């Protein structure tokens, strides 16, 4: 085992251990410990460890590290390009959510549950083992369900979540069992494996909120706590699972992936179109998130690395931008309650800084030049249209509807006669710090995307088990 491997595994383990310890401290000490301080320390360690994982992967020349036998397919511990990409991204998102969260949302048990959810997500990112993936799928679903159910008025939404995601979990378990029962499971050659592949695809569809199983996704935003909605959807565990279990067939794209891609494209356009007619700000964010995350899955099912590079770029760019929009809405709600966008709310005079941040994050989610999403959209549109014209048309329609929805939402929330006769609600320093920090990442990567896109290219080639132009063939053990 090389030094890079050792470092990567220790750091990956830390990303799981730190939030578990934080959750333990909060469970024991309760409110005395200061939930934001404890969780902030835990997530700060997670972010640092995630950066170390990325550095180790980069330092080792983009090779994949695995630990444990390929017991029933896949290694227990896997650190590869996908891990190195997603860990820092998700750590930033989780830290931003924690720092911007209104004080009242930081009840110790709620924060402990959030940290358990974070630990589950990072554990998932560090494995490619099907059995472990299934266990972690169940754990993350239960974590979200529990957070929604315990929130005030969240039970009906938790029921919707339980029905759809519970079904997805069952399909996932059965599908994975069939996949591993028909080795070599990665290729799903036999009938059992093929059925397993389809069941896993169906589970991914449900967990991802693809049409026609999408209704729980925006409902989670409108009827559940925003922290739970963001932490459950922004990491996109279903996309991750699809990559680990379904993508990368040496013999091309399976029919289940083509089906998933088309459903994802329809969902992206449909979600963006529905976002245009939403009546409250949370519905807008939920539908935009549903649309953007579907776009990621559409690119993941690619045969060309460029499409996958585009999908990974959308994964990160839309995740950061939608986290920003969601947090601005949350911060606004903490001052004046739920925000309708049925009529003009006139909140600009009350919260001018939040208006600016909402607009900037909105533009950053729309492919605006100078932001990471411009790069991501360029890659995904070029890639998708290179392969299929209908895909390109749907992607272009998605960007059109999403643009109208975001600007409509902005004008409806902040435009109109002033309706709040109260002192101006100034933005807090920690809130400004979070928003400026997220924007700095989005704009920094948008203005200087070269190294980031090159890293994504390495990840994409590794996922598709294809050699890059400047490399030789990928060794058999490179892909878990």
């Amino acid at each position: 085992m090389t030094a890079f491997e050792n470092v990567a595994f220790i750091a990956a383990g830390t990303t799981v251990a730190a939030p578990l310890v934080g959750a333990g401290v909060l469970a024991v000490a309760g409110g005395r410990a200061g939930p934001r301080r404890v969780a902030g320390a835990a997530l700060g360690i997670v972010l640092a460890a995630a950066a170390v994982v990325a550095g180790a992967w980069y330092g080792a020349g983009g090779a994949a590290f695995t630990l444990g036998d390929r017991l029933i397919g896949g290694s227990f511990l896997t650190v590869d390009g996908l891990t190195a990409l997603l860990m820092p991204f998700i750590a930033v998102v989780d830290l931003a959510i924690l720092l911007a969260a209104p004080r009242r949302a930081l009840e110790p048990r709620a924060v402990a549950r959030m940290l358990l959810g974070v630990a589950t997500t990072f554990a998932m990112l560090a494995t490619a083992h099907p059995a472990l993936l299934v266990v972690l799928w169940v754990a993350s679903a239960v974590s979200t369900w529990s957070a929604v159910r315990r929130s005030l008025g969240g039970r009906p939404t938790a029921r919707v979540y339980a029905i759809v995601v519970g079904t997805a979990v069952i399909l996932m378990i059965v599908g994975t069992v069939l996949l591993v029962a028909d080795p070599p499971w990665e290729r799903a050659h036999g009938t059992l494996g093929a059925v397993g592949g389809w069941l896993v695809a169906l589970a991914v569809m449900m967990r991802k909120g693809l049409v026609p199983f999408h209704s729980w996704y925006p409902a989670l935003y409108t009827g559940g706590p925003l922290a739970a909605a963001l932490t459950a959807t922004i990491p996109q565990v279903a996309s991750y699972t699809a990559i680990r279990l379904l993508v990368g067939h040496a013999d091309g794209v399976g029919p289940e992936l083509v089906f998933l891609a088309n459903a994802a494209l329809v969902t992206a356009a449909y979600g963006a179109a529905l976002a245009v007619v939403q009546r409250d700000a949370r519905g807008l964010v939920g539908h935009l998130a549903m649309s953007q995350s579907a776009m990621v899955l559409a690119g993941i099912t690619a045969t060309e690395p460029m499409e996958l590079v585009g999908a990974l770029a959308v994964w990160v760019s839309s995740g950061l931008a939608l986290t920003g929009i969601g947090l601005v809405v949350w911060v606004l709600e903490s001052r004046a309650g739920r925000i309708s966008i049925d009529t003009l709310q006139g909140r600009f005079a009350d919260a001018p800084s939040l208006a600016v941040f909402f607009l900037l994050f909105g533009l950053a989610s729309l492919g605006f030049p100078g932001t990471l999403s411009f790069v991501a959209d360029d890659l995904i549109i070029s890639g998708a249209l290179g392969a299929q014209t209908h895909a390109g048309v749907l992607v272009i329609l998605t960007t059109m509807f999403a643009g109208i929805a975001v600007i409509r939402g902005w004008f409806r929330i902040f435009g109109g006669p002033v309706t709040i006769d109260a002192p101006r609600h100034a933005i807090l320093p920690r809130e400004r710090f979070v928003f400026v920090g997220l924007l700095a990442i989005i704009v920094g990567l948008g203005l200087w995307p070269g190294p980031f896109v090159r890293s994504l290219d390495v990840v994409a080639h590794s996922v598709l088990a294809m050699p890059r132009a400047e490399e030789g063939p990928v060794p058999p053990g490179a892909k878990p």
Partner: protein
Amino acid sequence: MTGVEASLIHDTVAGLVSWQLVAPAATLVLIGLPALLGRPLAERTTTRLVGAGFTTSFLAALATLVVLVRRGFAPEVVHLGTLFEAGHHAATIELVADALSVPYVCFSTGLCALVNAFAGKYLHREPGFTRFFVLLALFGTGMNLMVLAGSIDVLFAGWEFLGISSALLIGFFHERRNAVDAALRAFTTYRVCDVGLLAAGVVMHQAVGSGDFSLLFVGRWPAATCGLPAATALVLALLLVFAALGKSAQVPFTGWLPRAMEGPTPSSAIFYGALSIHAGAYLLLRCGAVLDAAPAAAWLLVVLGAGTAIHGALVGSVQTDLKGMLAYASMTQAGIILAEIGCGLRVVPLVHVVSHAVLRSLQILRSPSAMHDRHELAAALGGPPGPGSWSVLGLLPAALTRRLYRVALDRGLDEPLVMQFVVGPLCRALTAAAAAERRWVAFLGGSAAGMGLPNDDGGTP
């Protein structure tokens, strides 16, 4: 000319072109960043910085023009770098200094500098002072990016800057319902028509493997030709025309322009009297060779341009407010310019754009005081000054005049038709789908599922 001289000239032009872009962009950062961090600059500092940015850009463009004139307008392609590469796709930043782009930058940055000076006084102590100048700097950056673009990708980036800055300035007085509605209408029209430019970019990439104009066109502007197959050229031309129609408020997308006058007068002058309204014309001038290769699209452009000109003249004649009248006058001239481009003219529309922009922006900037002067004159004379103007409509039969008058009062036929047959059904379908979604969620989870009940998110920030 020796190789060393040519290289020296290229480096000089490259430096000057870079300055044309960097100066307004740097201004944007310098005034935008402090505002973002909650420490906006003082009014005078803001106007001076923005003025310095536009003046620098103008002087750099003027110097480039001198170099180009001395070289007989031989175009210089400036490669600013590669943004990123993935597989066979490379996003390069190509700019071009030629007989179209450099005079256009001179005129646009000159106008922006003048409007900046005017707006500094006009918006003194206005609550959104910094916001206005941030958006003006964003507009100037986008305008220069669009005009100097050597590829459709760079042009699209500038085009997007124009769209968002335009919409936000229409909604500048955000507390007014009309301003917000007008801004949203304008942005929606832009976004729909941007689909044309986005798709045109993709078609270009597929056709020639790149978005660079130097690969699409042969020869120098305005005599460049396009070697695309007829069918591809037709598709590309139709997409470009579609994109231009929205930005230049042509039939059937005219409805947003008169409403756009809700914005502050300086932005109305620079956007809808001068620069933004002609963005579509600039796009079609730059890609004129594609229209030459697709006569059907060129004829369509002539028909739509002429139709818009008639529409604008007719509806403008019944406007009761000065800015509305000027908006329709702008629309009329923009229609004539597009028709000229469709007829295959290149230099004439360029001259038309510049002369119209200068005159119209002056009229719009003068409009508030002109009304005041006219009222004073009328009071002094005891009646309206001067006889009413003569109109060709007076020659038409009375019944037809009455019918046209009714149509003009309704702002023409295009907007009601689009609303009735496209926007209305689409909105109704989406609203019905959203309602069905809510019912389905309520069925799954009980009556309150996903309905936005209060939860533990509210409270202390």
